């Protein structure tokens, strides 16, 4: 059902954990629905760039793989670039997701956006 790339990110998630003293935190999902993701970021203020990003995720294979992928895609990107990472971008980068997983377990880009928002609100821009 899952592509090889999804299985690879599920089995070997990249950037799992929490950034220490994060500059931004985004949490999305709901345990009742079976998916919760928490993304923490460290931002290079001068460059407006994501220096480090990590995730923690409760959820199915797709939830974990998309979280892992989003951190890979976001790392080193400028914030405005990172905000462009949509669900579709994540799914495409993973070689596609089963249709029923496309929305329900593909929240990681939302989590990232929330973390960036959080960073901006904390830093007043």
């Amino acid at each position, binding site marked *: 059902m*899952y592509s090889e790339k999804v*299985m690879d990110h*599920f*089995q*070997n*998630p990249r950037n*799992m954990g929490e950034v220490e003293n994060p500059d931004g935190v985004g*949490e999305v999902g709901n*345990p*009742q*629905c*079976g*998916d*919760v*993701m*928490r993304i923490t970021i460290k931002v290079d203020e001068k460059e407006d760039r994501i220096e480090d990003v990590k995730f*923690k*995720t*409760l*959820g*199915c*294979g797709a*939830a*974990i793989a998309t979280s892992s992928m989003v951190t890979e895609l976001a790392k080193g990107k400028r914030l405005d670039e990172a905000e462009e990472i949509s669900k579709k971008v994540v799914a495409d980068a993973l070689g596609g997701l089963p249709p029923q*997983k496309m929305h*329900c*377990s593909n929240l990681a880009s939302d989590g990232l956006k929330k973390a960036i928002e959080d960073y901006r609100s904390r830093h007043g821009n």
Partner: protein
Amino acid sequence: MQKAIFLDNAATTRTGAGVVKAMQPWLEQNFGSPATLYSLGSQAKQAIEDARQSLAGLIGAEAKDIFFTSGATESNNWAIKGVAEALAEKGRHIITNQAEHHSILMPLRYLEKKGWDISYLPVDGDGLVDPDAISAAIRPDTVLITTVHANHEIGTIQPVAEIGRIAAEKKIAFHVNAAQTVGHIPVDVNSLGAHLLSISGHKFYGPKGVGALYLKRGVRITPLFHGGSQEKKRRAGTHNVPGIVGIGEAARIARNSMDAEIEKLSGLRDYIFAWVEKNIEDIRINGHRTRRLPNNVNFSLEGIEGESIMLSLSYPTAEGARPVFISTGSACVSGNLEPSHILLALGLPAELAHGSVRISMAKEDTREDIDYALEAIAAVAERLRNMSPVYKRGDKKCTAFDKSAGCDCEAAS
């Protein structure tokens, strides 16, 4: 790939080597249709009657009351729709419970749309139906009571004989879905008081695509398959001869091996429960602890989700690791958006239903394999919990669970 450890026998079992061997000649050589008179046909007819006898013997029935079907889903659909239709003039009320299999609930919802009235009784925190609640739900227009014998997900064995006595007293047709019990634990249609009883071949080492419905003499039921005059005109269609021979052989084998299987598997089951309670924190055991199928273990792991457990176990990454196949009540694998309706019926909060694991054993399983699987489960739980943003060790939100009180997870988390 290393040899997998298959612990999803409640979904389907391996067709036994003896069963496959018994089926073999009926595929290619003796392929005649039993409906004919020539020797190739009468041999097939004899083989079918032998299988009928064997299956009847396993459940204390008379052979003439066994009708072969394509599986328990067909048997359940036939039982429910067939009785409802045959007795529609008498009344349109049916009693069941919320923790039934979909092949019971969906036909009932279908009838509901057509004007039948269905009572879906609650179950308790262990999944047990209350016979008194059934008594209380009976109305003058009640025409059928349907109960599973043992739940496929949590293994809880219902007080079927008690319900059967109530049905007999009130003269109401009583259907038992015995898909999970026939061949595994003793099933006797008479002591259960069943008028109809559904059987599935592939659940007890028989082939897929064959099952049966026991119909006590005198039960009024409309056919689901109209057509040729097979099965005394109650179930048309060319007989699936190899499949029927296979379920007959599975029944013969089950009669001989059942006692040993029960002893071995209930031992393993209790061993697993003790092991997980000792070695994995923050779990909840689902289903009744003792009134339970010997081959069924079910528990929920806080803070993680079932599909990721299942996937991690079945595609292990370590060099030389053996895949372990289990199942889960998580929404992600249910084909629906909801987690297991059975776990929800117990009163479990959705997150614990998502985080459930079912281990269902087969008679050939060894203690070594089980130990391997348990270590794998514990390791996966540890890894996924480390990855979980919500898991906090020792929270034990819902371990001390009381359905009446409910589980105040929101408050705890």
